[in-house]
């Protein structure tokens, strides 16, 4: 631990000897700008549309001066949905950043390798087959862990070979999605809307209990992530160097993977397997900050921003039917991934 500190005395915020959180000036600026954007998107979410609370009324309404209709919109409809969106987006972004750091691969992301789909299958089983027996997050956690184990075993080389990781992930994703479809059809029969919420992820009709769940997960996991952040940064320099510097890669990786699974499972249990936020947020954070490193905080903030924006689009879209937010992130994230692939391949980096 002391060697860790000695290796990079500047650019770290230290708390005692155990915690050394890497902080760069660019990251601070990016973080502030992202937070401002999140607030702007949040204000838009609360005030746009037929049921929106006008911007001029917002400060009064939020400080307890809301009348009946506004109180209903803020307290029941859009308030909890917004809080869930921010927490879920942050959890997904952080989960993606952790996992991409471990796999050293932008595509080694929880949503690409089927982890989120596995969590969705676990959540569907617990919510539909065993309602009230187990809490949904437990099912999501079990599903995510099972998916991860299946990927790990079927590659035969752990997470080391990116090609195998991705193809195995596609297989696990397909199995998990088929399983979710099976469960939803078996229990809910013919409800297309229920199915799409479990397969694509949705933020419709979220309550404060969802918000409490995801923020509780963040409250527990974020301090633990802070504990390993410094060692993850050193791990970026390569296994050997990290070993020399006393940041044993194995235990750090195990911690990072575990925390990533927990975050992913938490996000899925409140919103379903929302696609591509975990993949895109760290990539955007990396490009905006323009620095190497795990980009943990920027990824979390960008993830929150992306999900709030996607949900804003989902709520205010001119379509006659409100589509689940997962369909928007699937379309936009997929397009971004395609763009990313072409860029990386042109440069021969992947």
């Amino acid at each position, binding site marked *: 631990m002391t060697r860790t500190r000695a290796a990079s005395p500047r650019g770290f915020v230290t708390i005692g000897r155990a915690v050394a959180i890497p902080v760069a000036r660019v990251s601070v600026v990016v973080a502030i700008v992202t937070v401002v954007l999140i607030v702007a998107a949040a204000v838009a979410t609360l005030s746009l549309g037929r049921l929106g609370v006008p911007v001029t009324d917002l400060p009064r309404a939020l400080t307890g001066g809301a009348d009946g209709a506004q109180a209903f919109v803020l307290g029941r409809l859009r308030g909890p949905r917004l809080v869930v969106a921010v927490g879920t987006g942050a959890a997904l972004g952080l989960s993606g950043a952790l996992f991409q750091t471990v796999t050293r691969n932008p595509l080694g992301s929880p949503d690409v390798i089927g982890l989120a789909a596995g969590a969705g299958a676990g959540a569907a089983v617990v919510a539909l087959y065993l309602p009230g027996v187990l809490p949904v997050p437990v099912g999501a956690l079990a599903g995510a862990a099972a998916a991860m184990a299946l990927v790990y075993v079927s590659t035969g080389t752990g997470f080391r070979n990116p090609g*195998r990781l991705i193809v195995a992930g596609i*297989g696990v994703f397909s199995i998990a999605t*088929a399983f979710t479809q099976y469960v939803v059809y078996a229990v809910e029969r013919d409800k297309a809307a229920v199915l799409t919420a479990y397969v694509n992820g949705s933020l419709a009709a979220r309550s404060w209990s969802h918000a409490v769940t995801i923020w509780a997960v963040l409250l527990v996991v974020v301090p633990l992530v802070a504990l390993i952040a410094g060692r993850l940064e050193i791990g970026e320099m390569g296994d050997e160097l990290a070993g020399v510097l006393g940041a044993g890669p194995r235990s750090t990786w195990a911690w990072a993977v575990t925390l990533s699974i927990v975050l992913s499972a938490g996000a899925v249990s409140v919103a379903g397997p929302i696609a591509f936020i975990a993949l895109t947020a760290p990539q955007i954070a990396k490009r905006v900050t323009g620095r190497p490193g795990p980009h943990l905080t920027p990824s979390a903030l960008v993830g929150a921003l992306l999900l709030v924006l996607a949900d804003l689009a989902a709520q205010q879209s001119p379509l006659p039917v409100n*589509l689940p937010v997962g369909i928007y992130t699937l379309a936009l994230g997929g397009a971004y991934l395609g763009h990313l692939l072409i860029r990386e391949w042109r440069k*021969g980096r992947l």
Partner: protein
Amino acid sequence: MSTGSLSRPREAAAKRAGLARRLSFLLLALVVLALAILASVAFGSHPTSLSQVFAVLNGTADPDIAVVVESRYPRTALGLLAGLCLAVAGTLMQGVTRNPLADPGLLGITAGASAGIVTATAFLGASGQWAAVWWALAGALAAGVLVHVIGTAGSAGGLVRLVLAGAVVSAVLGAYVQAVALSKPQVFDSYRYWVVGALGGRDFDVFVSVLPPAVAGLVVAVLLSSGLNTLALGDESAAALGANPAVMRSGGLLAAVLLSTAATAAVGPIAFVGLAVPHMVRALVGVDFRVQIAFSAVIGPALLLLADVVGRLVLRPQELMVGVVTAFIGAPALLLAVRRMKGAS
């Protein structure tokens, strides 16, 4: 199979033994297919016994039972055709791209065909199955080209790039198809199951309308099969043996697109049949494309029909769509194939 060191009589004997082996496998596969067809006619939400089914086939059955059993004919025919098309398309794609992970579903072609059909139905007022087939063909071609462009951008594309490009294109097109289908429920009521891939709820018109692309694709596949064998030796050897690699390759892919389009227009986007069947066939009878295509044409329909029967039985009286069942069967095949992938991407 045979090496130059074998003397001629022994080589001939080995060939005969190989032929006998293949014939016995073919016989076995045909028996399985016949059983699958029988099961597809016999099992369903309304239980019917085998004797009742044979009575219907003889024309001596109670009319009520006859209606039940005959209602299963169209889906059996569709399953036969779609299974054949998907398996042969997968064989062609794996052969032409020399990529053991190629599959019309994984490479985004079935997603393109669905997007074409959904677009035509929702926005262009296309009605009738014939129009849908043309739009499916256009969508499948566009998606195939897009996947190829993304997957081979920059330096020579590897196995994984193409699969990844296919996954990305499938994801985006799948989101589009779902968005359209969900926002126009009145238009897509009958397509709800089709979006996932299902044999039920469609009639013989559908079967007839997808015959032209299916037959065309199959004819091209058979014509190309010996040329594909030379292509497997490498481009230079193929050229030396008188085949034009570029023509073979584009012809093979075109046939694969035609076949996948026929299957998708008939029963919706079904992944993994085109992936798993060629692997099974190669394990049974080796790499000769003429044999591979023949066996795929038998094993593919058998697999799809059996998957459909399973889907009808697990949630009785409801049905599980065949696309969900094939994912359960085919995705493990993909996981097994991963272990045999060589090196990094």
